[in-house]
């Protein structure tokens, strides 16, 4: 284990070093990618070892940063799961990046991109390995900073800088809150190692526990992108290079989930019912509103970013249900909910990573992310199209792919709500069921739009006509993730027990409830139904194979002919006659008009001679996320006002600054002596 850990560190370090020393050229990019792949693979192997054997891996370095207990790494199963996730995505994204970063050749940012990518992966891998508060926060901050600079890779665009600003503000606010949560817990504990915190947690007063939970929820929720805290996500993710977006959306936001689980479930050991209910409520809200905004989005990567909000919502619903069942002392159902959430975490990493890589290939080939300029790419980029389709089916929860397996588990967990003795509390569950179903239906609609408009029909612009298939290494990255989507969909009976084992010993979930049957039909204790994805897939494949045979037996005509698209006899077809992405989403925009509050601006220029002849029509419609404005405008205004006030302190005089320092020092001394 120790050697694997070392190999992981070495791999990432190699990648970073290679990027700094020899960034350009095929070989240089290859070395950077090799570092990421090596590090990722080692991390994955280490994680698998911990997951399967169950023996935690511990590494102490008390000498480093010894003032605050030093660095401590301790990988238990829960941590290993998230470590494995990072490694699992690092490999395809690293491969993909080798060819993708060719676009940055000759620019200064290539060096930064390679180095920061490896450092980002390194720090992100170490977050779930942390064994004490210092290590955790140190790695967390490293992850946040490196990803911030990765977002800024294309600095020349003003939008990117703004996106980076949002991201930096949100992530640091989150860090502060998480720090506060840890400090609150540490008041009564011997040291800041997680073990001591866990031991001291029961002694905390209920209000302190609640405060810790809320602080952690806000802090980690802002990283995860849960509903009111999601604002940075659709801004920052599209701005980053695509393989970085894939990593950010696929795994980095999952670190928020990890943090919440670590604090809420592991360290605090669960809490009152309203914790779970709050998570379910926030999750359901995120799921529905995230997908609704995604539907209106025509920037392919922003669309995917909004879908991350949706999927984080689904994960939170699962985990919230788990916490809620736990508070009622229903271990089997609690495990089911948590496992559903964790399963969706993995699945989302796979398909969202895949979709971001696919979107990146398209953007790479076309030089635009606007869906209205795409179209017809399935003929020009057939492989990318196929991989993207797999991802689209998976995220739309279509059987037998992985999205369905985990959403099925979430549904089953929620259906268990009838076991809750208090109906007025249990009512949360059917409402969440309805919201989840709505979200998944809308997600399917959204991905019909995303795939159909991007890849099908005829090209909508000259750029789309001249598109070319992505290079081999990018294809390889996508292929790996597509296969993972299929495998995770077919093998839930193998995955679920492993996920269940990560929960053993956390909080009040008793290990007895985690023994899951390894039979072919997925039969989870607590779930009120069973299904078998492999048999389902087998059935579908057999039916699909039998169909042409049956048609031949029926004596069906086999001749075919290629003709024009039927257009009521009109002559010639241009891309302008096609259905656009905006038009596709129009019915839903009408239905949810109250939420979108679109502004319309229609101006028609009539012919001077007669108003029956139109010279030009200009139509503009915009959607303003009013919830965001409602929530963020007044704090922003407040901050601005505070900033204006603070500016007065700035005089540029060195003596003044020294004076401030002295005053601060005196205040600190006074506090240290008398404040208790």
């Amino acid at each position, binding site marked *: 284990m120790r050697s694997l850990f070392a190999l992981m560190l070495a791999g990432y370090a190699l990648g970073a070093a290679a990027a700094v020393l020899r960034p350009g050229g095929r070989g240089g990019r290859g070395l950077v990618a090799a570092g990421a792949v090596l590090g990722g693979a080692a991390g994955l192997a280490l994680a698998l070892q911990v997951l399967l054997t169950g023996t935690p891996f511990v590494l102490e370095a008390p000498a480093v940063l010894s003032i605050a207990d030093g660095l401590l790494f301790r990988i238990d199963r829960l941590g290993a799961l998230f470590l494995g996730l990072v490694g699992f995505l690092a490999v395809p994204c690293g491969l993909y990046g080798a060819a993708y970063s060719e676009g940055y050749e000759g620019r200064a940012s290539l060096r930064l991109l390679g180095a920061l990518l490896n450092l980002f992966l390194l720090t992100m891998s170490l977050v779930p390995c942390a064994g004490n508060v210092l290590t955790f926060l140190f790695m967390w901050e490293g992850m946040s900073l490196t990803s911030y600079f990765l977002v800024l890779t294309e600095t020349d665009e003003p939008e990117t800088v703004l996106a980076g600003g949002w991201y930096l503000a949100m992530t640091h606010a989150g860090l502060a809150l998480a720090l506060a949560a840890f400090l609150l817990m540490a008041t009564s504990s011997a040291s800041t190692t997680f073990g001591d915190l866990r031991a001291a947690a029961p002694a905390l007063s209920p209000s302190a526990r609640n405060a810790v939970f809320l602080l952690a929820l806000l802090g980690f929720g802002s990283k995860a992108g849960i509903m009111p805290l999601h604002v940075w996500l659709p801004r920052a993710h599209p701005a980053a290079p695509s393989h970085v977006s894939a990593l950010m959306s696929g795994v980095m936001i999952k670190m928020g989930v990890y943090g919440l689980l670590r604090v809420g479930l592991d360290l605090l050991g669960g809490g009152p019912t309203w914790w779970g209910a709050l998570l379910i409520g926030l999750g359901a809200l995120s799921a529905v509103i995230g997908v609704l905004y995604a539907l209106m989005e025509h920037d392919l990567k922003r669309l995917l970013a909004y879908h991350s909000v949706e999927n984080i919502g689904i994960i939170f619903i699962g985990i919230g249900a788990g916490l809620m069942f736990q508070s009622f002392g229903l271990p089997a159902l609690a495990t089911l909910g948590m496992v559903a959430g964790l399963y969706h975490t993995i699945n989302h990493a796979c398909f969202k990573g895949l979709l971001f890589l696919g979107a990146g290939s398209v953007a790479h080939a076309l030089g635009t992310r606007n869906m209205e300029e795409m179209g017809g790419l399935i003929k020009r980029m057939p492989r990318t199209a196929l991989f993207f389709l797999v991802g689209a089916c998976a995220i739309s929860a279509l059987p037998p792919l992985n999205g369905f397996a985990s959403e*099925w588990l979430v549904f089953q967990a929620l259906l268990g709500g*009838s076991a809750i003795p208090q109906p007025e509390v249990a009512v949360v569950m059917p409402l969440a*069921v309805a919201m989840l179903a709505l979200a998944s239906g809308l997600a399917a609609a959204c991905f019909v739009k995303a795939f159909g*408009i991007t890849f*099908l029909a005829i090209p909508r612009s000259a750029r789309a006509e001249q598109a070319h298939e992505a290079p081999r290494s990018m294809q390889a990255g996508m292929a790996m993730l597509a296969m993972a989507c299929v495998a995770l969909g077919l093998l839930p009976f193998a995955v679920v027990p492993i996920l269940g084992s990560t929960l053993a010993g956390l909080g009040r979930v008793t290990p007895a409830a985690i023994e899951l049957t390894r039979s072919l039909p997925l039969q989870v204790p607590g779930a009120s139904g069973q299904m078998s994805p492999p048999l389902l897939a087998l059935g579908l494949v057999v*039916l699909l194979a039998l169909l042409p045979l049956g048609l031949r037996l029926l004596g069906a005509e086999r*001749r075919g002919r290629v003709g024009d698209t039927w257009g009521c006899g009109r002559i010639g077809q241009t891309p302008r006659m096609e*259905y656009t992405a905006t038009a596709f989403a129009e*019915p839903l925009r*009408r239905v949810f008009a109250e939420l979108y509050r679109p502004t319309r601006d229609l101006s028609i220029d009539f012919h001077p001679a007669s108003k029956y002849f139109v010279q030009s029509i200009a139509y503009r419609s915009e959607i303003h996320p009013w919830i965001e404005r409602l929530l963020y405008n007044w704090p922003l205004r407040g901050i601005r006002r505070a900033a204006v006030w603070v500016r007065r302190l700035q005089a540029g005089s060195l003596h003044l600054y020294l004076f401030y320092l002295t005053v601060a020092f005196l205040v600190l001394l006074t506090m240290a002596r008398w404040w208790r």
Partner: protein
Amino acid sequence: MVAIIGFALGVSQAALALLLAPGLVGLVRWLKARLQNRRGAPVWQPYWELAKLFRKEVVVSSNASWVFRAAPFIVFASTVAVALLVPILLVPLPFDGVGDLLVVVYLLLLGTFFLSLAGLDPGSAFGGMGASRAMTVAALAEPTVALAIFALALSAGSTNLGQIVARTMSGPAAVSPGHLLAFLALFIVTLAETGRLPIDNPATHLELTMIHEAMVLEYSGRYLALIEWAASLKLLIFFSLLSNLFVPWGVAAGLTAGALTLAVASLLVKLVILAAVVAVLETRIAKLRLFRVPELLSVSFVLALLAVTSSFLLR
């Protein structure tokens, strides 16, 4: 041996559904014709139409890709797969462990998903319009379906179809208010999902009012035949779900000849009753404007919500 018999039973049940499905559509059409004081086409007319379509050539748009060619097969296969999972004649179902009600719902969504993609594929505005509307209706119907499943699972303790039917058959109270409300909710969803009035007009010739028709406007020959057959099978599946989940009288619990005959007879009676209800309804009401469809679906949503709450209370 038992497994083989079960397998054969499951397959033959689905095959029966597949064979009956076009007749069901023909029956609704015949009843509607009679209600319009017309003589109407015979009940078996859809069989002739399918036979004819299978013998015609296929014209495919030059813009279309493999998605367009694969979609009819995926739609048909997923619908037949659903037919294998749904109780039509007998319980316990041989394939009960393979999928539950949620699987059924999402398999049907799989078909709609690919059909919508195929609608977009040739680049025709009609297809795009149909796809957009079909996905809108499907997405908005989803919460109702999920809540109705919740209500059923609450009273039966399982989401697996065979078990729900078995539980309802053995239960003391045949009709509880929760069941009634869930039935109404699912009935509205059935109309929406199978493209009947007042959501979609199956007999329309005007492209602008179409949903399902607009999506398949580009299909011809055997592709069209597969899609139409699958659509009629979907209607039969929804009808038998409505009848067997809520009124499981006559569903065979054993393998005796008498029970099976009774099962077939009761299935036919139930299908005829539901077809008559749909035909009368389609004669009585006009198609809704597209933007009032969400209102109808929210009615069904409220009904399903009431079903869940009353099931909660009667538990």
